[in-house]
């Protein structure tokens, strides 16, 4: 069972994510974003969107950074002060994200206007996210020093997946709630191309904005044919 879930599913999920992302970017560029509903409702959104995004972005970045340099964290965690700081701030950010997510779910369910622009995909997105955040917080609360054994057991598994020799034994002994967390993460990856999750792949545009000049000019007589003209001819 573990062999299937943590040996094969990661590759299925990653394949779906890569192929699907390329397909959507090339054929459905128009939909490549997260549709905003702030225009229809902006009071509850404030309490949802801000805490959610800032909480989850930092936590996700920490997962990625530790996955890249697990040794650094393990040695830093040797100091009890840092361990406490790291775990507590992670927990606080997790609750911040959970608070935001609950506000967002409440908003989608309770506001008629927002419901009018809610698709089935949005519901799937919210289910995946709430499962991920709740299991993540469960890990942190029930099993002590998650940051240590994330670096010690889950990270080697991630590397084994990346190096194409997935070895479920690294995580075979982890508690069930952690396994749900990991499995759900793969579901999340598989759904990236089909849902509003694609919007975090659009982060390069805002970064380009920091460097570009304020005004943009396009010359139709000096440029290549644009996409829609190619479609028409």
């Amino acid at each position: 069972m573990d062999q299937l879930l943590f040996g094969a599913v990661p590759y299925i999920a990653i394949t779906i994510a890569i192929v699907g992302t390329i397909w959507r970017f090339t054929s459905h560029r128009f939909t490549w974003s997260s549709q905003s509903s702030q225009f229809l409702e902006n009071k509850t959104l404030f309490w949802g969107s801000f805490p959610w995004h800032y909480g989850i972005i930092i936590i996700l970045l920490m997962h990625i950074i530790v996955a890249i340099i697990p040794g650094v964290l393990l040695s830093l965690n040797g100091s009890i002060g840092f361990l406490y700081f790291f775990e507590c701030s992670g927990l606080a950010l997790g609750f911040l994200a959970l608070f935001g997510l609950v506000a967002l779910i409440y908003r989608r369910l309770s506001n008629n206007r927002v419901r009018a622009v809610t698709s089935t995909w949005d519901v799937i997105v919210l289910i995946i996210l709430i499962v991920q955040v709740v299991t993540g917080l469960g890990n942190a609360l029930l099993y002590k020093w998650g940051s240590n054994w994330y670096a010690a057991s889950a990270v080697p598994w991630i590397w084994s997946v990346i190096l194409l020799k997935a070895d479920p034994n690294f995580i075979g002994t982890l508690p069930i709630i952690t396994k749900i967390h990991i499995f759900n993460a793969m579901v999340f990856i598989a759904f990236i191309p089909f849902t509003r999750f694609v919007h975090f792949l659009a982060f390069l545009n805002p970064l380009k904005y920091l460097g570009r000049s304020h005004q943009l000019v396009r010359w139709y007589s000096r440029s290549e044919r644009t996409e829609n003209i190619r479609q028409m001819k």
Partner: protein
Amino acid sequence: MDVRAQLSMQFNLDKCIGCHTCSVSCKNVWTTRQGAEYMWWNNVETKPGCGYPLTWEDQERYRGGWELSGSTLRLKLLKGPGKLRTLANIFFQPNLPTIDDYYEPFTFDYDNLFNAPAGDDQPVARPKSLITGEFMDKIVLGPNWDDDMGGSPLYATNDPNLKGLSASQKELLTKFHKLFYFYFPRICNHCLNPGCVASCPSGALYKRGEDGIVLIDQDTCRAWRFCVSACPFKKPYYNWDTGKSEKCIFCYPRLETGQANACAHACTGRIRTVGVLLYDADRIEQTAKSSDDRIVEAMRDIILDPNDPKVIEGAIKNGVEENWINAAQNSPAYNLFVKWRLALPNHPEFRTVPMNFYIPPLSPILHQAKSDSGGCFDPETSDFWNDIDKMRIPLKFLANMLSAGNESLVLESLKKQMAVRIYMRQQRVGDVGDAKVQSVLSDAGLTPTDCEDIYKVVTLGTFEERFVIPETHREIKSTVDPRTMYEKRGTVGFGNKKKELLGRSW
């Protein structure tokens, strides 16, 4: 000198009768789609009034446009350290107007009028929201909610242009014998220094180099909505259904084939003219940085004389085609804004360097010189010329709207309009006297030829005189979208949205 061409529209506010034909023709062509019901790329407001969306001119609330911070120009939206502040607000925008600042789009339950079961009462058609499809208790706002100063104590009193008016002048809102209002049609200004373009993190907005039209690339737009906030005129609209912003496209599929804009073409009062301006793109920033009392003059400076050989040479070097240069030489835009100095930009103090111009309204000539003391105005005995600054509409109000508070520019334009009337009266009726006409003309700085020309373009102008629009020669350009406007109708020029897999959209 970097010579570029810019399409520009001018509005003669003196003649606008507020019939909304422009708005309706624009809507029929471009925005009759779900998500776009509330969009009025062209709208007509009553001034004094709140406008659409409500109090859009109040930049303390919406923070649109630019401000000078020392010697640098920055978006008002970004209070903090430059662009980083934009990105910090990317998940929630504090200054974004919501649908309640426009209105909830609605239809009526007409079906009930035909299919109601027999009963004692007349069946009614209740309003229904076009967003949720549910019945609405009542309609609380619409696109022209304060039309003709309706509800002015509630709405028009909040007009930001009333700032700086005396209590007695503000009585134009409440006292019948002082009452004054006029109509104010608005489209996107296709600015030289657009706030919308500068604020877009995706780089979806751009200004077309060839004709200066500002467009939104629908495939690049990622729904960040900064354009809506950063535009001080609130002319980009967020389509809540597709999740993309849309704006006035200056009817470019029509203009490219030499037709006038749908709004201008339909205008029953013939108040609109469209023409080409040549401007110096190197000086845009310097112009936008001018002080409030200088900014209109700076805008006139940046517009180049299309008959100057150096300008023509620069234009040819930059790829401006011959028919565009010819159009610029016969341009009503150049004549009204620069040559005759009749037209003025809307809110130049927002520093976007807007490229549509308005001739301030002169009528009714009724002034309040006598109405202050309760008497009636007697046009036979009054001297129009000397009392022009005692008109009902306070100069300050027009100046706040059209010249960043500079009353002398508005007065200059009104005096010129009046001089043309006096000159024409002498031509037709002959009861003014040549000496008087002479003094009035020299006072206003017009020649008899100018008067004839102004008279012609603002009253009798034929289609070709009002709309001097060069064609784009799409037939020899492979990079111009070849579709006619009928193919593009209702699609913002970018094709219909594709059907999705599951649910209504991604």
